[in-house]
């Protein structure tokens, strides 16, 4: 009888255990199910999603990731040389006016969002800390500014003040004002050098006058100058020219950005300006070479290769002066762009030059471009950079 009773108790206990286990597995599955069935955030068609105000966009960080070396010279003579290693690690060394090392900062990625920050001053105590991905996306620029701030303000009792680690209760340091020059070395031999100056009043586009402190970014590829960008800090206007790719100077102010972004989504800084010039040249080169940034380059067939060798594809309607791109950086570029727009509006093609009876509208386009070439006068795009170019 006792044996039967003991067996019954064991069976009941085992059954209860199995039931409880099944229940917990069920609830775990339910929990997992509830995790995977989170609602998808839909965005209405035509609505533009912009990043958080004050923050730079994903394109900025994608481009920044290709910066190999950043040399930041501060107004007090300190120089931070920051380099990116092959596996994405970042090393920044700050030197004083005499060239003596003051401190080193290293960033090592430890997972998808966190970095280990190692700070090693030549005088004072070292520390290591984990970055906070909700506050900061560590870049070469961030490392340079961070090591400079730590050397200037000290590294004890650190707290996060926005995206910067600094001493508790210390006044916030605006490092961008302390920056004098920045040299950004990027992929493909591109180098952007930023400097500061003050420009007298000038006209950079019809009816738009600018003046005051400016940041100037000079872009070169393998040492040859390829473009210039100027940001007028007081007027919040960015003007740039990339000869061969832009029709004179391109001017962007808060008015141009209002429709999509409501104005400048962030305050342009020294590093952004260099990267913007690099991005402009990089994307315009891609478009010129392959028709679009994302175009697939297909290998032509063998007869096609032969034909391409002797008679490469000449696109019937490229931006700029078709088959006269040598003049794209000149004041004649606008004539060609106006002609392209006129052709698009009237549905013309190159045949209308000799089939003149087909369309009077096309004839007008053709006559206009010839007249424009003979009598072109416009603004001097060198006015965006030249000192003493009065409006």
């Amino acid at each position, binding site marked *: 009888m006792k044996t039967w009773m003991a067996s019954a108790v064991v069976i009941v206990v085992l059954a209860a255990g199995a039931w409880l286990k099944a229940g917990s597995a069920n609830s775990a599955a339910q929990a997992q199910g509830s995790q995977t069935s989170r609602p998808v955030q839909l965005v209405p068609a035509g609505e533009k999603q912009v990043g958080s105000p004050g923050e730079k966009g994903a394109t900025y960080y994608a481009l920044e990731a290709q910066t190999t070396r950043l040399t930041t010279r501060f107004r007090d003579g300190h120089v931070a040389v920051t380099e990116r290693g092959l596996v994405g690690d970042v090393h920044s060394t700050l030197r004083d006016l005499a060239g003596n090392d003051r401190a080193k900062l290293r960033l090592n990625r430890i997972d998808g969002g966190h970095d280990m920050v190692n700070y090693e001053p030549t005088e004072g105590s070292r520390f290591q800390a984990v970055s906070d991905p909700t506050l900061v996306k560590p870049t070469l620029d961030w490392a340079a500014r961070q090591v400079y701030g730590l050397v200037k303000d000290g590294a004890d009792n650190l707290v996060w003040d926005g995206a910067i680690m600094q001493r508790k209760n210390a006044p916030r340091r605006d490092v961008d004002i302390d920056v004098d020059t920045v040299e950004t070395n990027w992929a493909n031999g591109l180098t952007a050098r930023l400097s500061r100056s003050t420009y007298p009043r000038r006209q950079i586009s019809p009816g738009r006058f600018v003046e005051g402190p400016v940041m100037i970014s000079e872009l070169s590829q393998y040492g040859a100058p390829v473009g210039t960008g100027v940001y007028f800090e007081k007027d919040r206007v960015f003007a740039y020219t990339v000869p061969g790719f832009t029709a004179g100077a391109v001017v962007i102010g808060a008015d141009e950005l209002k429709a999509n972004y409501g104005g400048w989504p962030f305050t342009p800084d020294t590093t952004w300006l260099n990267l913007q010039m690099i991005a402009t040249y990089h994307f315009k080169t891609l478009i010129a070479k392959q028709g679009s940034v994302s175009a697939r380059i297909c290998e032509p067939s063998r007869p096609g290769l032969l034909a391409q060798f002797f008679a490469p594809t000449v696109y019937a309607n490229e931006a700029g002066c078709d*088959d006269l791109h040598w003049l794209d950086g000149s004041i004649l570029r606008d004539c060609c762009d106006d002609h392209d727009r006129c052709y698009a509006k009237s549905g013309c093609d190159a045949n209308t030059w000799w089939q003149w009876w087909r369309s009077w509208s096309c004839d007008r386009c053709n006559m206009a471009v010839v007249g424009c070439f003979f009598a072109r006068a416009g603004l001097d795009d060198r006015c965006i950079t030249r000192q003493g170019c009065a409006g």
Partner: protein
Amino acid sequence: MCGVTQNAAARCFGFAVGLLTFVAAHAIEVAKWAVWFGGAHAPWFLNSGRAVIFTLGCLFVVSLIAGILRWSGAALATGAATAMTAVLFFGEGSTIFPIVLAAGGLLIAATSLLGSWLGSEISRLSPHSQ
């Protein structure tokens, strides 16, 4: 036809040399477009400042030699312009092709005529020219 008179032969040689010079310069530009001429846009001598200098430089040297040999500079320019037109139309064309042809033709004519004139002057001043 080219063997009828000495003048006709000089014109024929000039035309052929001008045509071949432009084609050769264009072939080099196609082959070295990305490396020597910047690589932007399609390979064509008026699409890059360096390509303009290269093509006109080749034409100038050849027309200088042609001038020394008393070949026709005008025929050389015509040959080069014919090659330019053929290359332009063999492609997909340009929306401003008359302007392109006029600009290219003027550059080619000016270079070839200057080169052949200088060549003929060198030839005339040479002590062996008599």
